[in-house]
């Protein structure tokens, strides 16, 4: 919610005007980081993103704050107490004094707040200068008009108080005129207090919310009447309230502007002052401004404009003309703004016409030409409010750039194009940017302007550099009023401001603020595009569209963050740098490339390569031959190396014992979890096992988790059943296939009663053996014949853990031994009660059972094959190390 500063109505977040009173609502402002472009809250001093400083460092004055400022020309619009009558408010004879209207009584709360915040000296001063009626009329101004007055004060407070501190310091140095000491002491405290207040305010801004005085301005607290009797110490002490006079200064600027613009207003418009007409431009002009600068001032409603015009007329009447002393030092040649070329008048709004008229004026006297434009602008009091009110104009906002921002300022072509067009400036202004040129051309005030103000800040040089002109902070607009009222000798003023301007315009000399430089390593990381044309910024800048900041501290400043369009464009990788290769290396590289690219013709085999290939083939063939010979040799005659008296391994004995310990007629479940590819190894165990079971009279039920396993089980069962007269369904049942998934095994383990079909298709519950099994625990032993680690683990995990008292033994392929043995080696309660490992295990098992089967027959072949492999390994290693030893020699 945004609360209207005038009527307090709650408006939506995005509202630009109050829904009740139409007051323009201040948009949420922020500070744009000049380094990374991030938008920070208004109170930030350092960027949230990159920690860059958002607020310029302000040099704290070294001298005592009580030191009087010697230059009266730039001091507060006060006058010494000794000469109250002479210095008094300088009534304007030409303009009839308006009848003092009773000041409209503001809301009681506001009144109290304003009285609390303003110091006595300021109130006294206001009373002394008789500003009451004017301020009363200013209070009557609509909110949007007051807002136009106020921003410069805020900007002045925020952006460049350092020059004020410089002014104060210079004033301390210039404290010489003894005859003015008394008067200066009376005058300086305000300026000293102001500068200190501004500086301290500047330091505190980053950490605190907008100060109270600023809030007061935003809340449009009506200024109080000035009361006489001001003490310097009070001004220093009440820092929080001091900026009020700046607000008053802005109001005075309005008055002065009215004075100057009044003739123009009379000529062109009977009721509406020129600057006010510029603030409220016609619809067409406003659209033009929008198109040109993409920033538009809040357009007040038409009725309010008329009211403002009437009020401004009153103000103009009150303000009148400058005092005599000001007229005496006024510039000799003054060209009214009406001399602006008609073409420009037709295109530009009034406020821009005012600017152009200033630019089109003939060169002012020496003092004017020598003075920096910002000081000339100070003297051009009438245009100050115009600039302030022309808020969207880039001119004003660029003037507001502090020095550190001016270092980032764009080059000539980056100026606001709209202003360039309106001013009719040519592109060939040289290296000076158009916006800077515009400031430069902002010649002295067109109308009756106190000459002292123009002369006072004039530096000794003939012309001021453009870079220095950029240093001008905007809040000088408000200070101009400070300068104009007190009658100060011109010599003192010149002497006082001269050095100030010089020092203030030299950025490196500002304490704590060094000129930013790009380090070498960062320069090296610049993209290739930036390195190509580093010395031609003007040409390069044209290619990159200049973006104007619309929000934050840099609002209205074009080209300050030119990286954005560059970042938006996809970066083209830098082409690899051309490497100059010496001639010899290039020739060698070329030859190497040719050799590599050259392919051997098909069918061409080098003799050496052919010999190596033949040797490898012969070696492989010999190894095969040796292995086949070792395997087949026992089939023809026995070597006697591996007889049947091989002692059985402990796991084999446990396996055998697990079966031997079973009660006769017990039911044993045998899982044939292998497929035909491993049947050559696993069938040896299965055959020995089934023969052992049937020989002992145990009932056998088989299943398999492999589609081919059930057929292998059936084959083994049939081959043994004939020997032991076992009957299917009565003595043995092949349960067939069990899907290969732990869920199916878990379901089988939980099956109660055991249901299903035999391999032949007979329902299990219809068989005698099947009727004996109602659950898995009815089995006396489970034998897992596994050629796969996974199926055995499922049996151990899904069945063994569920039925810990159900003994589980396994016959495995030799390759699974390292994986499965831990289940057998488990101390205490073994997860596998016995284990058969490969063909040797089967042979040992047959040896234990006393039945000579194929396992024992193949054991010798297996042993000989192992010996052959070991011999091959040994020979290969000997040859390898011998070759290494030979190469080593």
């Amino acid at each position: 919610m945004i609360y209207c500063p005038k009527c307090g109505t709650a408006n939506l977040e995005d509202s630009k005007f109050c829904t009740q009173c139409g007051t323009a609502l201040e948009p949420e402002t922020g500070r744009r980081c000049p380094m990374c472009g991030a938008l920070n809250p208004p109170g930030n001093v350092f960027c949230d993103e990159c920690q860059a400083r958002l607020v310029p460092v302000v040099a704290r004055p070294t001298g005592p704050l009580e030191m009087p400022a010697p230059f009266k020309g730039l001091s507060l619009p006060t006058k010494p107490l000794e000469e109250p009558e002479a210095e008094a408010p300088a009534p304007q004879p030409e303009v009839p004094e308006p009848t003092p209207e009773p000041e409209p009584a503001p809301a009681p709360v506001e009144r109290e707040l304003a009285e609390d915040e303003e110091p006595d000296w300021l109130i006294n001063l206001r009373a002394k200068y008789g500003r009451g009626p004017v301020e009363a009329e200013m209070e009557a101004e609509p909110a949007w008009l007051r807002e136009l007055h106020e921003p410069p004060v805020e900007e002045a407070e925020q952006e460049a108080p350092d020059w004020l501190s410089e002014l104060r310091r210079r004033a301390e140095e210039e404290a010489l005129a003894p005859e003015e000491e008394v008067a200066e002491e009376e005058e300086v405290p305000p300026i000293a207090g102001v500068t200190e207040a501004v500086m301290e305010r500047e330091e505190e801004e980053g950490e605190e919310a907008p100060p109270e005085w600023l809030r007061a301005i935003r809340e449009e607290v009506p200024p109080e009447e000035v009361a006489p009797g001001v003490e310097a110490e009070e001004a220093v002490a009440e820092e929080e309230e001091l900026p009020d006079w700046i607000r008053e200064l802005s109001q005075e600027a309005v008055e002065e502007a009215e004075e100057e613009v009044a003739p123009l207003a009379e000529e062109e418009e009977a009721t509406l002052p020129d600057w006010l007409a510029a603030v409220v431009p016609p619809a067409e002009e406003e659209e033009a401004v929008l198109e040109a600068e993409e920033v538009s001032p809040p357009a007040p409603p038409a009725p309010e404009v008329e009211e403002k015009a009437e009020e401004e007329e009153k103000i103009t009447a009150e303000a009148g003309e400058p005092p005599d002393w000001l007229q005496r030092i006024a510039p000799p040649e003054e060209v009214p703004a009406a001399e602006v070329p008609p073409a420009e008048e037709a295109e530009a709004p009034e406020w821009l016409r005012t600017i152009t008229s200033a630019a089109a004026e003939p060169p002012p006297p020496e003092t004017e030409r020598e003075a920096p434009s910002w000081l000339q602008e100070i003297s051009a009091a009438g245009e100050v409010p115009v600039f302030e009110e022309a808020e969207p104009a880039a001119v004003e906002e660029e003037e507001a750039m502090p020095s550190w921002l001016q270092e980032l300022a764009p080059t000539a072509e980056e100026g606001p194009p709209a202003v360039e067009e309106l001013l009719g400036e040519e592109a060939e202004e040289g290296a000076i940017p158009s916006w800077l040129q515009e400031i430069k051309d902002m010649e002295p005030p067109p109308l009756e302007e106190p000459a002292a103000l123009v002369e006072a800040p004039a530096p000794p040089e003939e012309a001021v550099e453009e870079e220095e002109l950029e240093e001008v902070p905007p809040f000088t607009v408000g200070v101009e009023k400070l300068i104009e009222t007190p009658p100060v000798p011109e010599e003192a003023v010149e002497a006082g401001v001269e050095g100030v301007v010089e020092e203030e315009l030299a950025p490196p000399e500002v304490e704590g603020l060094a000129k930013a430089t790009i380090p070498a390593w960062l320069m090296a990381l610049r993209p290739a595009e930036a390195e190509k044309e580093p010395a031609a910024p003007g040409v390069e800048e044209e290619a990159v569209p200049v973006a104007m900041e619309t929000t934050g501290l840099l609002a209205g400043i074009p080209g300050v963050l030119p990286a954005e369009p560059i970042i938006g464009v996809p970066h083209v990788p830098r082409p690899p740098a051309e490497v100059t290769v010496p001639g010899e290396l290039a020739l060698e590289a070329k030859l190497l490339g040719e050799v590599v690219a050259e392919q051997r013709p098909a069918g061409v085999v080098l003799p050496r390569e052919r010999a190596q290939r033949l040797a490898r083939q012969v070696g492989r063939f010999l190894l095969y031959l040796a292995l086949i010979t070792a395997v087949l040799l026992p089939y023809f005659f026995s070597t006697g190396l591996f007889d049947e008296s091989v002692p059985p391994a402990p796991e084999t004995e446990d396996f055998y014992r697990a079966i031997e310990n079973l009660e006769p007629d017990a039911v044993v479940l045998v899982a044939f979890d292998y497929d035909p590819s491993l049947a050559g190894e696993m069938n040896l165990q299965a055959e020995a096992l089934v023969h052992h079971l049937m020989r002992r009279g145990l009932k056998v039920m088989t299943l398999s988790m492999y589609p081919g396993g059930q057929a292998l089980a059936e084959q083994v069962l049939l081959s043994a059943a004939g020997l032991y007269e076992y009957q299917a369904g009565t003595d043995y049942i092949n349960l067939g296939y069990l899907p290969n998934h732990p869920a199916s095994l878990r379901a089988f383990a939980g099956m109660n009663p055991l249901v299903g079909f035999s391999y032949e298709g007979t329902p299990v519950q219809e068989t005698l053996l099947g009727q004996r099994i109602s659950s898995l625990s009815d089995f006396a032993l489970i034998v897992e014949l596994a050629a796969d680690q996974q199926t055995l683990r499922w049996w151990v995990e899904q069945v063994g853990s569920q039925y810990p008292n159900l003994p589980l033994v396994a016959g495995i392929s030799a390759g699974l031994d390292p994986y499965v043995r831990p289940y057998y080696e488990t101390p205490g309660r073994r997860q596998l009660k016995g284990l058969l490992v490969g063909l040797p295990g089967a042979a040992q098992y047959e040896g234990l059972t006393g039945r000579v089967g194929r396992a024992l027959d193949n054991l010798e072949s297996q042993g000989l094959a192992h010996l052959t492999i070991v011999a091959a390994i040994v020979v290969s290693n000997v040859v390898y190390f011998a070759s290494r030893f030979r190469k080593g020699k």
Partner: protein
Amino acid sequence: MEALLAPFLTESLGLLVAFVLTLLVFSYLLGDNPLFRLAQALFVGVGIGYGIIVVFHYVLMRRLSLLSANWLLTVPPLLLGLLLWAKLWPAWSKVGNVSVAFILGAGAALAIGGALFGTLVPQVRATVLSLDPADYPATPDSNPALDAGIIVLGTLCTLLSFHFRTPAPGQRVGPGAALIHFAGRLGRYFIMISFGALFANMVMSRISLLLGRIDFLLDAADTLLTWLGLG
């Protein structure tokens, strides 16, 4: 003629085909050749066909016949099974995700629970061994306490072998780091021995398979020669 062909068709023809295919596979010892590829393609095709037949007859039909008695129990698995067919059409594939999710969820739950209580906990407990010989019965052929010590030492060293640390140049290595480094190197030897055992057992298994094939070839050759009257 029929009496002559009947045993041939039932036994000897199959034996002959298996014999020939086994020789075709062994032809790979001489290098890749079309005969080996023919046997390979036949094996893959016959294996898939046989698997489909087994699943259809021994799983689907039999389970359906079992569940028909209580048809309410048939509905959920049938529904989930039918939803899986939706995977054939991309537009409806999401419908099949329900069945896939059920399968994966149930499988994962079973696998995790079984691995935790069937393998992880018992095997971790198995490595917590006493090194006191008094806790083991005295056996003349083996030393259980020494075995336990080797198991403990091998487990710790194997774990430490996965501790990768390299001191910076010039950094002095402390005694603790040196001990860890030494244990890690020792653990690598344990791992090498384990890999050697795996390889040796795998070679043993494949030699057994070779023997099985040679047995088959010899038996088949004997049978064929007998059938042909040459044996």
